[in-house]
């Protein structure tokens, strides 16, 4: 029952978020600001994790697929597929749910308990739309770029580990990267990250917007935002995979 009430409140908030903005030019400025705050500032963490993950996948594959019956180039192929299909969308989204989700929930939650949201409402501003919509637009637009970056850096990480450790021939790795490539996989990954971006931002915005009380409650709202966003990402990963790939 509580879950239905929560979902109902989420839907009502989203209807407020997607109502007509007061002035489009102000929203454009805020979207640019949020692209920097939520998108550009996440490049570092996404790149760092991707390079190590690409390297580790290559190492693991080369250790576990050591067989005269399995061609070595399949290691490059497996690294590429892992990065595109799961890591650069789902795992990066889980990491961003922690970084961006907690940021959004605590920012909006603090605004709620310090009456900044009430101040906006008194001015006649649709506070839900003013605060949450630019964040949603910014992340849905920018997170796919993070995914593309993650794919490139991750596969580069695999290549570098192949060179520096000698676990496999870099030429075989490159051959694997190009083997049986399906462009739809990239679209699949980009669609997933766009959906995840919406989920992370809207769920975190929801928990922040309805935070009540004091700083402890803001902390709780932030934690809930991360947990619920992460679980929802996993559920939607299953749904989207079923819908798009099968």
């Amino acid at each position, binding site marked *: 029952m509580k879950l239905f009430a929560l979902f109902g409140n989420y839907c009502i908030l989203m209807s407020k978020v997607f109502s007509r903005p007061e002035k489009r030019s102000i929203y454009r400025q805020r979207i640019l600001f949020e692209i920097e705050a939520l998108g550009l500032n996440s490049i570092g963490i996404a790149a760092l994790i991707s390079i190590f993950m690409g390297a580790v996948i290559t190492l693991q594959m080369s250790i576990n697929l050591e067989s005269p019956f399995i061609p070595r180039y399949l290691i490059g192929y497996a690294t590429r597929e892992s990065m595109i299909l799961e890591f650069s969308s789902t795992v990066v989204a889980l990491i961003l749910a922690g970084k961006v989700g907690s940021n959004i929930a605590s920012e909006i939650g*603090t605004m709620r308990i310090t009456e*900044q949201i009430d101040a906006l409402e*008194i*001015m*006649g501003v649709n506070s839900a739309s003013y605060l949450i919509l630019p964040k949603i637009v910014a992340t849905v637009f920018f997170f796919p770029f993070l995914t593309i970056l993650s794919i490139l850096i991750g596969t580069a990480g695999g290549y570098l580990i192949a060179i520096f450790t000698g676990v496999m021939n870099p030429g075989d790795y490159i051959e694997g990267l190009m083997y049986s490539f399906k462009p739809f996989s990239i679209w699949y990954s980009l669609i997933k990250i766009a959906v995840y971006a919406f989920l992370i931002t809207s769920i975190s915005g929801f928990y922040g917007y309805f935070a009540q009380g004091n700083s402890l409650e803001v902390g709780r709202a932030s934690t809930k935002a991360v947990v619920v966003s992460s679980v929802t990402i996993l559920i939607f990963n299953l749904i989207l995979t079923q819908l798009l790939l099968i």
Partner: protein
Amino acid sequence: MIRTEHLVKSFDGRIVLNDISVEFDQGKTNLIIGQSGSGKTVLLKSIVGLHMIDSGEIYYDDVLFSGLDFKARKLIRRDVGMIFQGGALLDSSTVEENVKLPLDLFTKQSEEEKLERVNFCLRRVNLQDANGLYPAELSGGMVKRVAIARAIVMNPRYLFCDEPNSGLDPKTSVVIDNLIHEITVEYGMTTIINTHDMNSVMEIGEKIVFLHQGRKWWEGTKQDIFHTDNRELNDFVFASAMAKRAKKVTAID
């Protein structure tokens, strides 16, 4: 003028405001006083529409505000300024951006006109050269002044202040009180201040409403306070020995 009729508000079945009927006069500094937990802030937030009321009516001049939908309320809110207890300035915006925000969102003025208006309002509250500062860089008194500047930037007809003196030293409190009073007279606004600061009552209170246990217990002028025999009001206003002596002296005079 703002009027409430038989206003009732409860939270989780607990009645916080019980049958409040009161009229706040235009061009006057109206004060709501009462102990902590008496329902002052709930009344103020109910009047501005931040709390949904259970029953009763709220009128802004002759418009039934409590009967309006969200869109219609938005139009009235363009005529409303509010100063919150903690200032409620947007942390991520500078002083100038905070004051300019309503102009950005609701007017078609040029950037120059907007800046001129912002600077006028900041000068009005004696805050020159603070345009580029962030709220975290301001003192408590400065935050309140910026909040006042933001509240008056759209030339509101109604001004609401939720404990504007909380956290301020007595001297700064007097400055803020006088500023609110001057602006009220200057613009002919209907101003409602929610306070438990007795200095404010004596300095600027023109019409005073005393809340006790969620009910309107008394209303009158600051002169009436010295002659009332309302026990709860006397207990609240003249709580300290010094205040009791002051009442005796005033009564004798």
